[in-house]
């Protein structure tokens, strides 16, 4: 399986992703520059974290205009595997590949901690084949209006995993696919 890691100006965890794919997983790795116009035969495209285009206007708002994003949209429409991490997740929201938007977390603090995930769907490529070890929370995705317009079935399908707080025993809704 060939993994593509997208690099925008301002991306910083591209090398981390590359190291995991190349050194840990041992799969084929291809860096994809944001100005590229093809995915070079990648089977899975990863949008890593960082501050693409300096987070100008809103996080991810400018990155969606990168030439490669059009290719990624078509790739996703054909059922291709696209994985957004952190800033990459925000870019996917702004590009309309994921519903909803992200807002700042209530504490306005950077939070990096071990957390418990309850996986709701085990039939997806990521959840059935890849062990999720850590989940880093920067900001809180919200479903907002976009999800309210969706039927419960559609919403249920979008929900892959939920964060479970061991202290409060509360679930936080996490939508991603």
């Amino acid at each position, binding site marked *: 399986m060939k993994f593509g890691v997208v690099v925008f100006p301002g991306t910083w965890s591209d090398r981390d992703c590359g190291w995991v794919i190349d050194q840990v997983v041992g799969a084929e790795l291809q860096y994809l520059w944001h100005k590229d116009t093809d995915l070079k035969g990648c089977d899975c495209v990863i949008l890593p974290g960082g501050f693409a285009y300096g987070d100008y*206007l*809103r996080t991810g*708002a400018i990155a969606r205009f990168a030439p490669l994003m059009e290719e990624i949209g078509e790739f996703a429409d054909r059922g291709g595997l696209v994985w957004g991490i952190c800033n990459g997740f925000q870019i996917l929201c*702004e590009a309309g590949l994921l519903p*909803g*938007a992200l*807002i*700042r*977390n*209530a*504490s*306005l603090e950077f939070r990096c901690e071990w957390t418990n995930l309850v996986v709701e769907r085990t039939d997806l490529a990521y959840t059935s084949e890849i062990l999720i070890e850590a989940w880093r929370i920067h900001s809180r995705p*919200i479903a*907002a*209006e*976009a999800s309210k317009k969706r039927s419960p079935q559609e919403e249920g399908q979008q929900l892959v995993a939920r964060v479970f707080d061991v202290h409060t025993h509360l679930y936080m809704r996490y939508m991603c696919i």
Partner: protein
Amino acid sequence: MKRVVAKVIVTPKPVVNDPQGLTVKQGLATLGFREVEDVRVGKYIEVSLDAENMSEARERVEAMCRQLLANHVIEDFRFEIDHEGRDTRR
């Protein structure tokens, strides 16, 4: 063609929690401004553009707000357009 300036204000929707606004409100309270009831933090964007008339300018700026300047899921926008009074026709 006339050069006009659109003054766009983007705000978080009323239903969206605004921790930036809350933090600023707390800061103001610390400074003694205890009469402050609420603070919302948004963005101010000035766009200079050429348009045949005001109606065209409004239409174009509205499209800019919808497509890029505001995220309709979490933000509202409003704008006013000022004449800069400069004729850009050569």
